[in-house]
Structures are given as C-alpha cells and as structure tokens.
C-alpha cells in the first residue's frame, strides 16, 4: 500500500509545511506519492520531485485548477484514493477545506490536526482548544488526516522522484473562483517564522498596533501576530490571528504584547520554544504560559526593548 500527500503551493512555491507533512508520511514505511494540483504546474512538480523520501509526484494539471476548488480536488483524491492506505496533508485552511470532503466521498472518518502518529492507526490530537489530548484509534481502511506540521521535522531536498500526469475529471462547475486578497509584506510568513511578535487588544488602535509592534518586528526580522480580540477590533488583518481559529505557530521566540492569554489564543502559540509576555495586568493568564514575564506598560516597555536590540 502507499501513502498520498496533498501538496499545497501558491503557483510558484511549495508550502514549507509540505516538507513536514512528507516526514509525517514516512511513518507508514510505504512509498509516498505527492499530489500536485493546479495549472502550469511543471515547475512546482519539479520542486516536489526533489523532496527526499518522495516516490512519485502525481501532477493533476488543468486550466480550471488554476485556483483549485475543494470540490474538484476532493473529486481527484476520490478517483485515486482507493490505491492508498493513507491520505494526508499539513493542517491548513487549504487542506481543511478539501480533505473532509474527500474523506466523506471515500466513506471514511478524518483525523484533523494529528499531533503525533503511533502504531496501529492511532493518533494523538487535541480537543477543547488544546486543553486536552485525545488518543484515538481509527478503524477505517483508509486513513485520512491532517498533521500538525510544527511537530514534524522538515524533509530535506535531494530526491529525484518520477513525475506522472493524471487525467483530470471535468470541473465540478457549481463554484466559481472570483478573487483573492493577500496582504503581502516583507515580513516572514507567520506560520514558519523563527520569531513572532504578537499584539492584543491593549494596543488600543490599528495605528498603535502598527506604531508599537512594527519597529520591533522589523528589528527582529519577526512575523507579526495578533489575538482574535485585536483582529475583531480592526487593529490587525484576519490572516495574522494566532489561535484556535487562526494560525498555529511554534517559533523559537514568541513575544506576546498586551495579550491577555485566553485559551483560544494560547492554543495557537504554546508550542513556542521561548515565550515572553509583556502586560500591565499581573494576573493576565498569558503569564502562566510565558517563560519571561514583564509586568509593565507596553507603550513604554516595547519602544525601550526595540531601542535596546542591536
């Protein structure tokens, strides 16, 4: 039997999390195929073929897949899925949209965001916003899952897998892609950044959020993150929300500024290696997950910190 990994990419580059998903896929000790879906994907397929540990790259290329829709990708996975014992992807908004649909077509359950993989189709995943860990055993013949990529080391380059094209079924046709909005910035991507500077509602306004946090992030080469409260208040765009319903990060250093530390937020950052919290409220729950706690007025402390960094 074989393992299939759904490859996420933006048309130019593979998602960094794919390399971690490939490592997760090696658990089953069976040949790993990557499914690359898109339009004009030769370049991407070549990148995928160079990941070590990949046996084969399956290229599903069609004009209507330029912005792949869940309906079309799930149908593709369904077409080839019976050849596989395991179908997985890194946990992301892309895979969360597609894999449950594919699992239902295959009439199997899905395991979302597996933290670790064990023998006998057993997985550990969290529940209640990371407050508990569930060990679950799947009884299905095909395992469909997304993996918590930061828990797996990235696969290296150096492979030379064969690339095969498959016939793409006709478009599902009931959904039309219209537009996308990406806030491009020069900062590193939030999900893979080594340092994250994150702000909460205490920043008070979009202007202050930018004015206080950006210079620090720039000096550290850090990505910017935000709490849901800060995003809801309009201080920061939705795509930088860290937490249960946003992005999950595990950087080397996470600096939480004016963040109260609701469990829904800490779910998204508590795997960070070092956590620094700066908050005026000594009872803020963020201090319970922080390694270094500074009770201070952030409007004074953060500029001081920024100035003191080389």
């Amino acid at each position, binding site marked *: 039997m074989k393992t299939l990994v759904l490859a996420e990419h933006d048309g130019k580059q593979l998602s960094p999390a794919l390399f971690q998903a490939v490592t997760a896929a090696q658990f089953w000790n069976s040949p790993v195929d990557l499914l690359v879906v898109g339009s004009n994907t030769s370049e991407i397929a070549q990148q995928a073929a160079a990941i070590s540990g990949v046996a084969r790259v399956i290229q599903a290329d069609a004009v209507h897949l330029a912005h792949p829709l869940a309906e079309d990708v799930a149908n593709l996975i369904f077409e080839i899925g019976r050849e596989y014992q395991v179908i997985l992807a890194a946990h992301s908004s892309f895979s969360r949209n597609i894999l449950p649909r594919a699992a239902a077509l295959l009439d199997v359950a899905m395991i979302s965001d597996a933290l670790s993989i064990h023998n006998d189709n057993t997985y550990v995943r969290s529940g209640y*916003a990371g407050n508990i*860990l569930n060990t679950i055993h799947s009884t299905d013949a095909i395992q469909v899952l997304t993996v918590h990529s930061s828990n797996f080391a990235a696969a290296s380059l150096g492979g030379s897998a064969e690339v095969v094209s498959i016939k793409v079924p006709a478009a599902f046709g009931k959904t039309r892609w219209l537009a996308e909005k990406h806030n491009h910035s020069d900062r590193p991507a939030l999900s893979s950044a080594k340092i994250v500077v994150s702000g909460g509602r205490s920043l008070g306004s979009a202007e202050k959020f930018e004015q206080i946090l950006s210079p620090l992030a720039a000096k550290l080469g850090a990505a910017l993150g935000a709490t849901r409260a800060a995003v809801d208040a309009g201080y920061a765009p939705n795509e930088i929300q860290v937490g249960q319903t946003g992005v999950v990060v595990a950087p080397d250093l996470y600096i939480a500024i004016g963040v109260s530390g609701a469990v829904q937020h800490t779910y998204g950052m508590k795997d960070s290696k070092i956590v620094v919290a700066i908050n005026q409220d000594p009872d803020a729950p963020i201090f319970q997950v922080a390694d270094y706690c500074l009770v201070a007025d952030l409007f004074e402390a953060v500029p001081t910190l920024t100035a003191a960094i080389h």
Partner: protein
Amino acid sequence: MKILVAVKRVVDYNIKVRIKPDGSDVDIHGVKMGVNPFDENAIEEALRLKEQGKATEVVAVSLGTTANQDVLRHALAMGADRAILIESHVKLQPLGVAKLLKTVVEREQPDIILLGKQAIDDDSGQTGQMLAALLGYPQGTFVSALNVEGNEVTVTREVDGGTEDIAITLPAVITADLRLNAPRFVKLPNLMMARKKPIETLHAPEMGVDVKPRLKLLQVTEPAARKPGIKVDSVEELLSKLRTIEGIQL
C-alpha cells in the same frame, strides 16, 4: 428560500473541562452547556437573510439526546421558525452527523445549509465539508461575508494569508467563521415564546444511516504544562536573560 442550520450542543466556551479520573473522556456531568459559538454565527446569518427578505423559513436541527432541546430553544428564541431534534444515543462523529443531516436535507430541501466551521469541543471542522460531499453540493467554508443574489451566493472565505471570494450555485453548504456576524442576544420574552414553537423529534436508529463511530477514543490526558516562568523587573533584565539562551540573538 429555506435555510437549514445545524446546531451543536457543547461545553460553554468559558469553562475549562475536567478529565474523568479513569482518563476515558472529559467529565461534562453538571457542566454548563450551550450552542457551539460558530453555530450561533450560522443561526444569526440565516436570520439576517430572512430579515432581508431573501429567506422565508429558518429551520434549526441538532443531534444528540433530549438535552439538546435547550440549544434548539436557543435557536428558536433567536428567531428560527421551527426545530428538528435527531435523537441518538450513540456518540456521533462528523461523518455520522453528516449522514444524518443528509437525510434531513433530502426531506426539507433547503437552499442553503449553514453550519459553524468547527465545534469548540472536538475542533474537527469537518461536518460541513462532509455533508456537502455526500449531497454532491458545492461548499463555501470559513465564511466571513456572504451575499445571496438569485440562485447564487457569493462568499468571502478566511484562508491562510488572506481572504478568497467565490461564487456558489445553490443549493449549497456554507460554514460560518466567527467574523461573519455578531449574534444577537436572546431576550427573555423571546425565550418564553420559543417554548411554543415546535420541536420535531426524529430517531437516528430509524433513519437507515450507518452512524457507527469510526474513531475510538482510547485515552484522554492533559497536555504537559509549560514550566513556570521567571518574572523580570525591567526590559534590561529581560534582554540579559534572553541573551543567555542559545540560538537567540538580540
């Protein structure tokens, strides 16, 4: 236009759940329960479509035991027209829920099925996509804005790195993100009136659907706590501590 909204009963989001001493599951005995927050957004959006004159009927459906009547009453008090309880004594998983919902959709023939994008107890985030697959319907997931025009719904989806807009032909399955709307508060008189609205009960074992759990819960444990942090008194002290850590250059 008819809208079906699926409502899950979960532990209140403010409560930190306890694990049973034998580690077999979480202990929800006597714990405050309520509507899954994302499902509340789904109900709210259905009601707004009705208030805009785009929908004519909003039907709420919940799956579980008779205890689930409380979340259906909540949906009715918010403004849903009627409710359906699918009674099941098997602990349902997303695929089973999707299969049961499918039979309700086939009977009710709604134009839009609205669900929360995930439930805050199991955090699976699968049911909407699975239901759409089983029905052969298109899907719009993680939706933060929605506009119905004729036979089409245009949605803004929250995706990693930004947003995406897609247009979907009805009938369709839509899953709500928290930013879709701010759910209304339920007023006491409405709660009283909701008691008079009908809740129909269907029995899962009689619906001819295989809802056998595919995933077996072996053990529930607490995650390892982070080791207690150090209090620092100044930015200087913070920096001097951080500078001693290998791999961090400040």
